[in-house]
């Protein structure tokens, strides 16, 4: 039976040609289907392209740094700054020893005051309070009581001053000793400052000449030969110039000999401290001094062997960045671009943040997923996720205005003084920033960890319950281990989030560029630090484009970029492993 769509009469319409032609509409030579493909595929690849561009850009801007740094180190060496820094280090070590002496003195005074001055101290406090109360009450107190209170206060103050004076008197021998000790270094210090002037002179003339060279070549390029010729170049011959510095070696050796003798003479007889229990510290000081003196021949040997023309290697340029312990810019002496203080600052803050955020985020995730009822889930989940929507500058502001203030106030409480680092005075420090960053990391960790826990097959839990396990046992022994790799990768991504956070650390970390003092133990947490992200944000606006400082900031950016890459890679790898083991 013919259907009605087919031509009824065979001769009315010729049979359609069978060949199916391709669609005719083309855009830029592509069919419609291909256009769609290109559009969607293109969108998918934008991410890859952007990533590649960013990497390329960072590398291009950053890689020139190492050449410039090498050049900078070369001038540092050839102008003799390096030579002087060897002696300077010797002087700095002496200063550190003097500080050690001073610390002993502080300790002695504190101990003596505690021993003898407890009553006086209490009297003083009581008198102060009484006066304050009476003065505050005004009309309520008769003037006679106020007068007598004032008199008591004056008396107490006098007693206090007398105690201070008597302690100082007992320490008089110690003080002359300390003064003699600290004066021993003066000749060396004088030598260093004389030499420093010569060296900075050489360096600044060199830099001036380099600037002229640039100007000249610019004139020549612009075709202004006359102006170019007007600039007179004075090449610096480092070898002869530096001879003025290295020439002092005999003088130095003599000064050093006297210095050695003076030190040994000074520590031969140690003063007796009024607090016997602290005497061992002074003995220790003597040992330290002897160690210090023992280093002198080595220093002299280094100075003798020093040669301004030794080339600076690439690896030196590289290691002075990666392992450099100083980030010092716009210095009259020498700029240093060492990433270590910044890296350590970032690390300390991130660790503090993680120590707070990991238990919080993970426990919250376990609780919400395994224990909480649906109503709690509806309340808590959006609340935690909302934290990540708070602009970080607002958090930073909160950190300065509220958190820093509150934490410091808390640290002043007598009853909390057992916490390492308490009490402290710097309002902005690694702890303040770390606590806020924890707040930023919690949503990331919580959300991802909750996902991981949620993905633990129900069957595992049921099997555990069916074997007579309690809810807690099931969580601890089955759910968390099964979700562990997911949780770990959540923590890694949280770490990445924290490492990359800028605004909060810039506002709250205290921004002191120095490796925190780890000898303080856990109290390292309350020291101000600077971070890799913070330094870029802070300095990028002020540096000359293309200069060494500018490029150094890019290399810091590169380091951050690689840290982020590494953390993400690890997180993905761990999650993938988890899938294989359960699937």
């Amino acid at each position: 039976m013919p259907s009605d769509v087919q031509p009824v009469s065979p001769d009315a319409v010729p049979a359609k040609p069978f060949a199916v032609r391709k669609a005719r509409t083309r855009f830029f030579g592509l069919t419609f289907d291909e256009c769609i493909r290109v559009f969607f595929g293109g969108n998918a690849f934008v991410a890859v392209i952007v990533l590649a561009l960013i990497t390329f850009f960072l590398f291009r801007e950053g890689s020139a740094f190492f050449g410039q740094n090498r050049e900078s180190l070369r001038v540092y060496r050839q102008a003799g700054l390096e030579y002087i820094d060897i002696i300077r280090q010797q002087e700095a070590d002496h200063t550190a020893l003097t500080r050690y002496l001073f610390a002993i003195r502080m300790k002695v005074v504190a101990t003596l005051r505690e021993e003898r001055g407890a009553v006086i101290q209490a009297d003083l406090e009581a008198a102060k309070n009484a006066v304050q109360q009476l003065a505050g009450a005004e009309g309520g107190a008769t003037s006679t009581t106020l007068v007598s209170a004032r008199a008591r206060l004056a008396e107490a103050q006098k007693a206090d001053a007398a105690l201070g004076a008597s302690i100082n008197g007992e320490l008089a021998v110690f003080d002359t000793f300390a003064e003699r000790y600290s004066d021993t270094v003066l000749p060396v210090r004088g030598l260093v400052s004389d030499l420093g002037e010569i060296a900075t002179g050489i360096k600044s003339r060199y830099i001036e000449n380099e600037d002229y060279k640039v100007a000249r070549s610019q004139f020549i390029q612009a075709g202004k030969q006359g102006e170019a010729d007007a600039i007179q170049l004075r090449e610096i011959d480092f070898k002869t110039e530096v001879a003025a510095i290295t020439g002092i070696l005999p003088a130095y050796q003599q000064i050093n000999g006297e210095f050695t003798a003076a030190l040994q003479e000074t520590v031969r007889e140690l003063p007796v401290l009024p607090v016997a229990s602290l005497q061992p510290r002074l003995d220790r000081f003597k040992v330290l001094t002897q160690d210090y003196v023992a280093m002198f021949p080595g220093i002299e040997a280094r100075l003798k062997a020093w040669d301004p023309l030794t080339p600076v290697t690439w690896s030196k340029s590289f290691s002075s960045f990666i392992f450099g312990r100083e980030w010092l810019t716009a210095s009259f002496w020498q700029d240093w671009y060492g990433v270590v203080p910044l890296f350590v600052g970032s690390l300390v803050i991130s660790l503090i943040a993680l120590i707070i955020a990991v238990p919080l985020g993970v426990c919250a995730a376990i609780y919400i997923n395994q224990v909480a009822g649906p109503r709690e889930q509806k309340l808590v989940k959006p609340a935690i996720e909302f934290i990540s929507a708070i602009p970080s500058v607002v958090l930073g502001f909160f950190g300065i205005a509220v958190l820093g203030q509150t934490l410091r106030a808390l640290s002043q409480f007598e009853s909390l003084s057992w916490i390492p680092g308490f009490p402290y005075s710097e309002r902005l420090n690694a702890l303040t920033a770390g606590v806020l960053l924890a707040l930023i990391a919690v949503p990331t960790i919580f959300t991802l960890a909750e996902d991981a826990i949620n993905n633990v097959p129900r069957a595992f839990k049921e099997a555990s319950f069916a074997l007579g396990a309690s809810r807690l046992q099931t969580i601890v022994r089955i759910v968390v281990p099964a979700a562990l790799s997911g949780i770990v990768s959540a923590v890694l991504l949280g770490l990445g989030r924290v490492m990359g956070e800028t605004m909060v650390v810039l506002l709250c970390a205290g921004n002191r560029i120095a490796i925190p003092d780890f000898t303080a133990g856990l109290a390292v947490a309350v020291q101000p630090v600077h971070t890799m992200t913070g330094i870029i944000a802070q300095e990028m606006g002020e540096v000359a484009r293309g200069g060494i400082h500018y490029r150094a900031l890019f290399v810091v950016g590169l380091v951050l970029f690689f840290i982020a890459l590494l953390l993400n890679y690890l997180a993905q790898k761990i999650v993938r492993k988890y899938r294989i083991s359960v699937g």
Partner: protein
Amino acid sequence: MVTTTSSRTPLSSPMETPADTPASRTFKVSSVPSEDDRADTLIEIKDFDFYYGTKQALFDINLKLDDKRVTAFIGPSGCGKSTLLRCLNRMNDLIDGTRITRGGVKVRGVDIYGRDVDSIELRKRVGMVFQKSNPFPKSIYENIVYGLRIQGVKSKARLDEVVEKSLRGAALWDEVKDRLHESGLSLSGGQQQRLCIARTIAVEPEVILMDEPCSALDPIATAKVEELIHELKKQFTIIIVTHSMQQAARCSDKTAFFYMGKLIEYADTRTIFMNPANAQTEAYVSGRFG
């Protein structure tokens, strides 16, 4: 609808000539329990109504399950077999909104939904094997000792002993004795299911509930598990949910047929398959519906 005659057919009741029933042509009922009259009642379910939220899943169930016997629950999908099974060790407590409005369950005369009964203790006595094998992502050894570890057993010697005993009990020892510390997930499906059984018997429960334990297994693995059930029967009371009539006929001593949340018929397996009292039961076991 058909009236439910929840007939606990007396064992001594005279059977009709088996050869005439359609079921007898389909099934070969092998178990001819001779000592049935000496079986005690272990579990007693009385006037039991159960709800998921507002939806009633079980209606007025009355059932007495025998000690050291295999009881099979059969019935079309969604009729409440799993629900009833999970009520016997209170696994349904873990689902939000489940309620029992009437009746109760007694194990050895103790009301398991009573106020002073600890569901955790109960589950140590009434173990469960699930439809889909679900070993933990741990080693074979750790899978077996899990139940003991959570009870605080630490002695290595005791754990080793239990592992061997349980694996032998689950007829798995010879296959895995050299790889006890490999992941339980590295075993085949049938081995995994036997591992789950071994894990259950390691805590020495009195009752083992099995919810379609063979539905994901091939015929050979199924045969092994069925053989195992025969062995286990000496020590444990077994309640098994199954969709396979042959399996119910081969393994069980008694069979309960459910339909739409109600117990339709409960009797000696022979009776159910050869001479059911209820027309629906007969229709189901002969494969005419369900």
